[in-house]
């Protein structure tokens, strides 16, 4: 019989499969109608979903609230843009972004992990603001204008070469990358090492008395989250052709947090649903009124008041309950009523 945490992760996978199906149908429909706008919007939603995923790794599993996760998103985006302007190589840009975010994630982790709780949130916020302001005032990084003129890429994937200029192809590639990151993180969290990260959120004070360091798993979670944000960020200039300092601003970090909370904290897949929902709403409401932030704000307040566990949190207990009953039946255990974990 599987542990509750494993069943919980399986329930997330059910929703990921559903998301894949929805996106596949959407992709085919949009491709047939020859749409480019919504395909590019969906690609942007996935990229922002990667940033939200990184917020959820910290918040939903390690119990760490980062208010500056856009820092690593921006670092990935700028590194990617800088490389692409010199050498238009997809793999070069990705590798550079991974390397730079890794180093920055370790440095940031060494600083932020000296403190806990509210102070951790404030330090992550502060670090992102400082770097964003530095970028904003650095001419060689394009200052407040950002970096423009990122060329449209040809991306060699071994068996086929796709163009970042093709909305459908780049949408599919982005989905594959986000899916790989989702799968990788879900796998890591299902290992003994991942259990220690989850235990950090549950009861950090008890861990040392079971012989575990608390600093190491916290640091590992931080660096992994930074990498996920950085890789997502690296895709951004390939889609949009430019990067700007706003990518690192608090608005970006805050939006990612809203996506996670609306989608469902601690579910991984909720981050992606939240990103899709918010990106779509912003686009639709933004085309109707320039005060779309008011509407988004109201939706956020409503979500917290009436769906504190987010979209996925509302429907997940039913799915997880089903998986639990099935697992118990296989293990010949009594089908007792139980509270479903989140």
């Amino acid at each position: 019989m599987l542990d509750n945490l494993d069943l919980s992760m399986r329930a997330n996978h059910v929703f990921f499969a559903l998301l894949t199906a929805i996106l596949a149908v959407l992709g085919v429909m949009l491709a047939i109608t020859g749409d480019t706008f919504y395909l590019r919007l969906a690609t942007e939603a996935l990229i922002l979903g990667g940033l939200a995923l990184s917020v959820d790794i910290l918040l939903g599993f390690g119990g760490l609230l980062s208010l500056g996760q856009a820092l690593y998103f921006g670092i990935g985006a700028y590194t990617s843009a800088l490389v692409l302007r010199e050498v238009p190589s997809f793999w070069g840009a990705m590798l550079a972004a991974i390397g730079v975010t890794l180093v920055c994630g370790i440095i940031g982790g060494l600083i932020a992990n000296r403190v806990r709780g509210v102070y951790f949130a404030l330090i992550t916020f502060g670090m992102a603001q400082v770097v964003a302001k530095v970028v904003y005032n650095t001419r060689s990084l394009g200052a407040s204008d950002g970096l423009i003129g990122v060329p449209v890429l040809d991306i060699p994937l071994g068996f086929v070469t796709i163009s970042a200029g093709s909305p459908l192809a780049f949408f599919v590639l982005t989905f594959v990358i986000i899916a790989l990151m989702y799968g990788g993180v879900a796998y890591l969290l299902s290992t003994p090492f991942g259990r220690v990260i989850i235990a950090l959120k549950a009861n950090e004070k008890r861990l040392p008395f079971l012989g575990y360091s608390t600093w190491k798993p916290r640091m590992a979670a931080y660096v992994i989250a930074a990498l996920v944000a950085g890789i997502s960020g690296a895709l951004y200039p390939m889609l949009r052709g430019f990067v700007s300092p706003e990518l690192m601003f608090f608005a970006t970090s805050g939006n990612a947090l809203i996506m996670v909370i609306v989608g469902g904290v601690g579910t991984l897949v909720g981050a992606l649903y939240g990103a899709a929902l918010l990106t779509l709403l912003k686009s639709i409401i933004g085309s109707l009124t320039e005060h779309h932030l008011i509407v988004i704000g109201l939706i956020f307040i409503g979500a917290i008041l009436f769906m504190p566990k987010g979209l996925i949190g509302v429907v997940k207990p039913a799915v997880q309950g089903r998986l639990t009953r099935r697992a118990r039946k296989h293990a010949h255990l009594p089908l007792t009523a139980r509270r479903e974990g989140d």
Partner: protein
Amino acid sequence: MTENILETRDLSIAFGGLKAVDKVSFVAIPNGITTVIGPNGAGKTTLFNLISGALRPSSGQVMLAGLDVTGHGSEKLQAEGLARSFQITNLFFEMTVRENLRLAAQRLEPLSHGLRRIRRKGRAAEKVDELIARFDLGAKAFEIVGTLSHGEQRRLEIAMCLACEPKLLMLDEPTQGMSHSDTEETADLIRSLTGDASVLLIEHDIGLVMSLSDHVLVMHQGANLAEGTPAEIRANPAVQAAYFGQG
């Protein structure tokens, strides 16, 4: 002569001007039960915190199996064979019983298994099964710990300590808040633990202390007031004045 499993030498800590633990020296009975008693505020839990690495002593030494472990952190001490429970139940309340035990036991497996999928077989899994059976938690194995009864949580608290096969087991008021029948059962359980480890106990129930202990250490205002077998302690006039006298 074999090494003492646990020995403290003039162990002290002061908080400001208050000497919470004042030059306490004692030797725990190997594979027996050594109990620390004393009125509230005598420094029993502080002594536990000093030995288990939660606090760093101002002076004095802690020797674990002949090794000077003074000032070692909790994480390191655990690897050196020390496990402790807490007066206030301290578990992973959102996880199931199995998940709690699994977390405690997974250190039995090589570090290289840390990034592999959790195995249903192997040393950690066997240990979890063994503990669930021994502590009679089978019916609750897949339940969230927060939904368990107080007695069950206290039992799990002890089981967690045994998961890594410690040499020294420190239990801080394991029967705290338990019903009479639960207390009796827990006493039997604690007695059975001496087969696995040496036990250092903090306990308030004097009847239990007298029946369980091989050796009793009486603390009063941070200091070691008396030491001896339960019978000796019962007959000690200083203890009677300081402890039993207060009713």
